[in-house]
């Protein structure tokens, strides 16, 4: 693996980004160090506002860092923007780029011209990408008539037009249904596997997506990288703890989740999604991390004392969200104060 910053796909050192704002400036990135190897599928995992998109904007030359240095494909993001732009591309979730009156095929061809593909190569590449992304039936359909999923496939195809050495995917499956998101993930993996050296930097707040796609993941929150490693390495950080998913008929009274989190032997207690037949009801799900299994008794007792009834209980394998909770003391969907550790 190369150590020379010029040989890395992405190299960032002490990158900060502070936005002017009132009443006080907002620190979006608070000193990020990051090395991504060529050929790596790297994930930035974190909740909204963690600084993921800001980092991508810096690496794609759209923003200057307030301080620190960053290089993409060996080129400096401040002074060598033209060279970086020749070897990268990016796709964002919910993107509405292009012009609605063009057909799918025309839209892709137009963007191919911005990368200098010849007429013949441009149309050839467009047809290849339409086939790869499964948009054959929509190839002559106007872009404004495409569904959200089709539109995002089109955006993805646009991102591959120039065969980028480094592809930036910023929440690419945001708002897509399960099938469309799965298709997109499969296309991404297939494209990357085609040629050695293709690097992908993905930002997401979907755990499954990060685990499925990424060789390594950085967990980001409030502008800082809290942990970095392979999904397995990250999960191992919390394997010393026992994690239980508890489903209740209602939120416990007298202190709620915070009271549970404060019990002896409880490392953290956060909200989890209620699924299955409980979805849409008043039920609540809680994920508790315990120092050892014996603390479970006090949790169940405390819940009952606070007027809640146990509907379900299961032991869980540690997930990336558990790692996140361990690191920051709250879940992805939780704001300050709604959880305890």
């Amino acid at each position, binding site marked *: 693996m190369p150590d020379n910053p010029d040989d890395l796909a992405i190299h960032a050192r002490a990158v900060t980004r502070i*936005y002017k704002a009132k009443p006080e400036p907002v620190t979006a990135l608070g000193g990020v160090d990051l090395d991504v190897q060529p050929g790596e599928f790297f994930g930035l995992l974190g909740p909204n506002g963690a600084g993921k998109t800001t980092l991508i904007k810096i690496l794609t030359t759209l923003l200057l860092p307030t301080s620190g240095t960053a290089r993409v494909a060996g080129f400096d993001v401040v002074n060598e923007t033209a060279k*970086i732009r020749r070897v990268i591309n990016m796709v964002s979730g919910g993107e509405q780029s292009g012009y609605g009156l063009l057909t799918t095929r025309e839209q892709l061809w137009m963007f191919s011209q911005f990368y200098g593909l010849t007429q013949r190569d441009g149309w050839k590449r467009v047809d290849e990408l339409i086939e790869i992304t499964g948009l054959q039936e929509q190839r002559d359909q106007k872009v404004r008539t495409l569904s959200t999923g089709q539109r995002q496939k089109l955006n993805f195809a646009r991102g591959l037009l120039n065969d980028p050495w480094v592809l930036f995917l910023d929440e690419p499956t945001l708002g897509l249904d399960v099938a469309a998101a799965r298709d997109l993930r499969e296309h991404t993996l297939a494209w990357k596997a085609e040629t050695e050296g293709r690097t992908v930097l993905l930002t997401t707040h979907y755990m499954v997506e990060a685990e499925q796609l990424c060789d390594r993941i950085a967990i980001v929150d409030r502008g800082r990288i809290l942990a970095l490693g392979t999904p397995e390495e990250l999960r191992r950080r919390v394997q010393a703890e026992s994690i239980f998913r508890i489903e209740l008929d209602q939120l416990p009274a007298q202190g709620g989740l915070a009271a549970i989190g404060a019990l002896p032997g409880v490392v953290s207690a956060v909200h989890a999604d209620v699924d299955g037949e409980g979805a849409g009801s008043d039920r609540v799900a809680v994920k508790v991390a315990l120092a050892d299994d014996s603390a479970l008794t006090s949790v169940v007792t405390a819940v009952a004392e606070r007027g809640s009834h146990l509907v379900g209980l299961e032991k869980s394998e540690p997930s990336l969200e558990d790692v996140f909770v361990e690191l920051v003391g709250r879940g992805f969907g939780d704001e300050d104060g709604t959880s305890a550790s």
Partner: protein
Amino acid sequence: MSSYHALAKTPREAAEWSTGRLIRVNMRAIVGRAYPRIIGLTREPSWIFFEILLPFLAVSAFVFVYRALEAPEEFIGFVVLGGAMTAFWLNVVWMMAAQFYWEKDQGNLELYFSAPMHLMSILAGMAIGGLVMTSSRALAVIGIGSILFGVSYDIQQPWLLAGVFFLTMIPLYGMGMLFASLFLMWGREGFHLAQLLQEPIYFLGGVNFPIRAIMPVAALAIAVLPLAVGLDAMRQLVFPNSDPEEVLAPMLPVNVEIVILAVMGVVFLVAARLALGYLERLARREGRLTLRWQ
């Protein structure tokens, strides 16, 4: 799959472009950006109503006023020609000056910024596409106006006329290219800024009346507005027999106006280039303007 970086073994090799390749990429980017505007002619037939028939009503109103006042017939020709040139001005205001604002809203601007072509190529593509699209509208206004109102032209130097027309388009669209960056920097609402510019330039450009009628403001207009200079030069070439002692008399000789247009072309294009560079620096430094979510 065909490969864009077919011969490059590393990203560093792929990023090394010759001057020839740079030029080719930018030329293709111009064609690419012009494409949606040109193809739009066949996709949105409603433009015939909104951009020919409705503006033609305004032209007709002036014609009827001049007829009622028994003004010389040249006035009718002036109005028809002015109506045709109005189409270009509207195109510059709405589809050049306000365009970056809308491109930002759609998320196109950040894709343009992060692509390898120069942004001037995008502006040039917008201008060429707009020019082609609007020429068809302008020709329609001239054709309909000439037939309905019986306008006769005395064009003795058609090549010079064509040259003056294209020379007018360079500073006119250059002005649009400049405003594209300025609108984005100044305001949150391109729509309002476009409206703010539209009527004053109708007036100062003299599209519906001989510009000499508003002396001495006309002298200022001639000095700064490509539309006013170009229209005055074209009217001289299309209606050469207008009474030189009356209000129909030209502001300046055609040769002088050609020089003014050429200077304006250089000034506006250079200013557009500088404004674009400033916009990009500002956008990268402050983290606003180009980013859809800010």
